[in-house]
């Protein structure tokens, strides 16, 4: 199955629901807040679906929580606190909400889409992070999402 077939077969509707802009603010603190919200939302979404593919989604949820914790440390470094976390799927960005509410047959396809979004989000954010150590932390998180994208594509047989 190629990517097009997968999307047509299971998640075509999702194509019309691209993720809401996570990086509405261009300052460093705003960028970090957007990244933190995306990671917390992703952790909730994976948690909602972890029963479907525990060997894949369990580590992905754990890593999203670890990423959020690292970003919370960066928020503190720029003088910002950690906001109240999202709690239900209704609190999530569009991409995470789509994954959280997926039918079982669509979970992997939506995991691919949400990780593609996360890779794009971090690629966009990296030039906007002036603190070198915060930027390096974001770079390692970008690498992590690229790896999760690889394994989800592989599992979904997306080419």
């Amino acid at each position: 199955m190629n990517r097009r077939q997968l999307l047509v077969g299971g998640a075509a509707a999702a194509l019309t629901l691209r993720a809401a802009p996570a990086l509405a603010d261009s300052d460093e603190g705003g960028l970090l807040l957007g990244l933190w919200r995306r990671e917390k939302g992703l952790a909730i979404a994976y948690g909602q679906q972890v029963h479907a593919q525990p060997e894949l989604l369990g580590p992905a949820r754990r890593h999203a929580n670890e990423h959020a914790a690292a970003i919370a440390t960066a928020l503190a470094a720029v003088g910002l606190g950690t906001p109240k976390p999202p709690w239900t799927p209704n609190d999530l960005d569009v991409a995470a909400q789509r994954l959280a509410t997926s039918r079982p047959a669509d979970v992997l396809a939506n995991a691919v889409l949400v990780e593609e979004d996360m890779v794009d989000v971090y690629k966009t954010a990296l030039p906007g992070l002036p603190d070198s150590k915060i930027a390096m932390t974001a770079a390692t998180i970008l690498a992590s999402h690229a790896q999760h994208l690889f394994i989800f594509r592989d599992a979904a047989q997306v080419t």
Partner: protein
Amino acid sequence: MGAGALLLVGCGPPDEPEVDAANVWGEQLRVSQAALAAYPSISLRSAAAKRVRQLESQAGATGTAPTATRSLQTALEAERVALQAHVAAVGELEDRASRELLATLIAGTAEAVSALRAEMDEPPIVDAFPGQRNRP
């Protein structure tokens, strides 16, 4: 969370030396060439070659192609070194164009690390912060 991730924040030296961008890019090209030279003839090699070409076109980047024993294991080790170098370069180069190219290289190299591990029947992901020094 990984302690290393916490340590990346707010613990830099007070007076950092001026960065020579040409040297940084030269190092990125060197490690990527070393990774490419270590690949056996598998499909993943073409993506590694593309990353080298991207670096060769970067202004100021120079280097000579190294030789290496070709195997999945040596390619994996070399790509891990390359990923660490690319992440470190993010801390040295702040301009938008550099960060954009490094982001592309980091995503591609991280994927290559997982793909090589998968080829070797190893867990493709072993860490939440790949590319940190002194971590898998």
